[in-house]
């Protein structure tokens, strides 16, 4: 029989604030707070989005030297991993356990800071307005920050976290688009199941809330014009930018029991598929959990807010839950956090863990006119208590793959 895995720590940093409780209380109330992002848009207007309020990395990273080589995404990753380990009550741990602990992170391209490059690059522009590479080689390169490359390597969040907590076991960085963060949790589950570790930190971090990220999403036509975020609504035309990170602590059941850890939920199963095969990942997660569609009591949806993707996602749910005898409540946390890319899955999983622990189904903030109506899906507009045993979290869309994770309510003494 496979080793059982439970969730024992939650850490989150998002527009809702720092800590998993801040995220849950905002999600529970469907409360979205949009703030000034700290830069102006192409029209010179201050841009507003889902910015983390007053984030100070120094609170989590005590070594100033380390801070200098961390892109904002890395800082957020470290902060939320600290929060998750604190929540799990794991401190350092015996050196002999270091090899049995690891980390998996969902990541990708980390946006650089404009001024860092601009300084040395702008002095190497020739008369025709083009970069003179010869001049750049001679004068530009020496002007760059020597550790520039390390500040932005996608696997550096996992590296910093592993050093901080002395995690010498399995270490991986998934860069598969927006599903990366939830895939990281799924792979951490597999690593513990197969016996390669007893405790894993898993999560994701992203901040594209900067001019480089904004330009890319704006250019791709993915941003909602009104700055609002209303997944699954007929009037939704895209997403609003957010930033954040979430990490969870996964632990082998007996390991968690031995140290008397609080258990949020059991991780029941996981499924993955290519991006267009959402139903394959949904069915794989059910099969892996050994349950039927009718056993799912709540679904945390991806909801990118792009019309075609919202429709495709709802169609996949309708197909998989076709035989669901009741009506499945569906929530979506993105209107509360904004679009957070690699971090979105873990942030939504933190919400799901609270859904199942507290027995409360949160609303989809801002939803007025659902894009599609299905006899088996209830796109929740009013939060409400609900007794449920299994909660599903699904991430797909925006050039990402599909990933689905199932949590099972933890009943003591089982």
């Amino acid at each position, binding site marked *: 029989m496979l080793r059982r895995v439970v969730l024992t720590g939650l850490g989150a940093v998002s527009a809702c604030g720092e800590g998993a409780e801040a995220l849950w209380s905002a999600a529970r109330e469907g409360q979205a707070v949009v703030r000034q992002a700290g830069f102006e848009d192409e029209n010179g207007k201050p841009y507003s989005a889902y910015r983390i309020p007053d984030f100070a990395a120094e609170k989590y990273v005590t070594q100033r030297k380390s801070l200098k080589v961390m892109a904002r995404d890395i800082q957020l990753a470290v902060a939320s991993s600290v929060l998750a380990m604190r929540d799990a009550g794991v401190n350092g741990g015996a050196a002999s356990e270091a090899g049995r602990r690891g980390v998996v992170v969902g990541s990708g391209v980390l946006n650089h800071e404009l001024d860092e490059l*601009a300084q040395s*690059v702008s002095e190497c522009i020739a008369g025709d307005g083009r970069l003179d*590479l*010869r001049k750049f080689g001679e004068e530009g390169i020496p002007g760059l920050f020597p550790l520039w490359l390390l500040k932005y390597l996608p696997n550096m969040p996992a590296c910093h976290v592993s050093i901080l907590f002395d995690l010498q*076991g399995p270490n*991986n960085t998934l*860069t*598969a688009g927006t599903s990366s963060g939830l895939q990281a949790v799924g792979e951490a589950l*597999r690593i513990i199941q197969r016996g390669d570790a007893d405790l894993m930190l898993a999560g994701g971090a992203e901040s594209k809330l900067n001019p480089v990220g904004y330009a890319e999403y704006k250019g791709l036509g993915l941003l909602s014009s009104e700055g609002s975020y209303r997944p699954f609504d007929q009037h939704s035309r895209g997403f609003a930018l957010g930033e954040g990170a979430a990490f969870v602590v996964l632990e082998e059941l007996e390991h968690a029991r031995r140290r008397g850890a609080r258990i949020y939920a059991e991780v029941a199963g996981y499924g993955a*598929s290519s991006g267009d095969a959402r139903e394959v990942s949904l069915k794989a997660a059910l099969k892996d959990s050994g349950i039927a569609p009718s056993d799912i009591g709540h679904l945390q949806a991806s909801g990118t807010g792009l019309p075609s993707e919202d429709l495709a996602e709802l169609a996949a749910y309708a197909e998989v839950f076709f035989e669901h005898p009741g009506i499945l409540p569906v929530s979506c946390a993105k209107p509360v956090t904004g679009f957070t890319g690699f971090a979105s899955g873990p942030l939504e999983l933190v919400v799901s863990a609270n859904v199942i622990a507290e027995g409360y189904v949160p609303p989809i903030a801002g939803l007025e006119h659902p894009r599609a109506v299905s006899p088996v899906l209830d796109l929740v507009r009013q939060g409400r208590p609900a007794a449920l045993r299994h909660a599903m979290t699904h991430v797909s869309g925006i050039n990402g793959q599909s990933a689905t994770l199932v949590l099972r309510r933890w009943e003591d003494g089982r």
Partner: protein
Amino acid sequence: MKSGPRRVVITGTGAVTPLANTVSETWKALLAGRSGVGPITLFDASTFPTRIAGEVKGLDMNRWRKIRPEGDRLGRNSIFALEAVSEAMAQAGLGRLEGTQAERTGIYFGAGDGGFDFVRYAGILKEAMTDTVSVNVPVYLQQTLKRMDARALLEQEPSQVVNHLSDHTGARGPVSNCLTACAASSQAIGEAAEIIRRGEADVMLSGGTHSMIHPLGVAGFNLLTALSTRNDDPEGASRPFDKERDGFVLSEGSGVVVLEELEHAKRRGAPILAELAGYGCTADAYRLTDPRPDGGGAIRAMRQALEDAALKPSDIHYVNAHGTSTELNDQVETAAVKEVFGRAASDLPMSSIKSMLGHMIAAAGAVELIASALAIRDGVLPPTINYRTPDPSCDLDYVPNTARRKNVSVVLSNSFGFGGQNIALVVRRCEEARS
């Protein structure tokens, strides 16, 4: 095998390397001890500290740009991967995937990020510098939205490679990509094998692809003083384990393997090259770029891979080294191998094909695994070329300069990366293949 009875074999291989654009031609060149390193031609590097690299040559890039939708935006990394996947699938006897086969086939790659138009981007930055210290963001945004193609910017994301691959091959099973620096494609292959072992897929397309031969890539590594600057002797620049080594040589390309569950492969009569028998993965948790001086992480990774394959150190016949040609790696890897294999280490041949290929970064491990499997098939070990001056701290048998005939059945392949990533894979002859 601890994860259950499902065994994983290699049924197809593909490669695009600085030596050649197929597996068989690359292998021939490796056995001949040829170097694929030369002066950088992809951009004007004439004033860069490093002006040499291992570039892919003679590949018809336009073929893929015509075949694929949005083909004109494809990065070199995606084109290399599409080419190598095609070779590997053809070898494995797989066409475009449909129906159940598509759902039971996944992709797990260690693809690196795609390059971008740095020269154009620099022009935009300049225009947006309305004073001498900082960028005027509205101007930057106006210029970027006007002059940069957003879909081309998106191609920088390493996830785009697997998006293209799943779309092109039809694979609908588990799809992922890991980017764990220089260990990425080895880790991808290890994790892909785990997916097959636990039954989530029957076939996995795995490997890696990368090109960092662009101004920012070379500049970034130069700033870290990681690259060889032996610009006057490109072919002699990558010299793993040699006392005169002065850094690694950046190169590019792709390596792909088709991994398949043994019974599945036998049922469809697929050609079985070798069995992927063991996988080990650890972290140094030490420093951002330096390995643990005692090689602790590397040692544990090798031991895990052996344990996973249910083998003893004495079962290993050849080690395909990470062997980057940097001062630190070669020393620590040598010490780690000596710790794992004890006194037998001095009789254990260990070579680095990076001496010929340069360092393909995320793609390196996959090509090295393919070479490991071919060493078993052909009974010949590729050499470490440019080995002239022994280093007292690197005193193993590195198969210096010329390939060596030797029957080997079990090979260990190491990959270590920035960030303290340690991966070891064990590949062995598959006896079932003959029955």
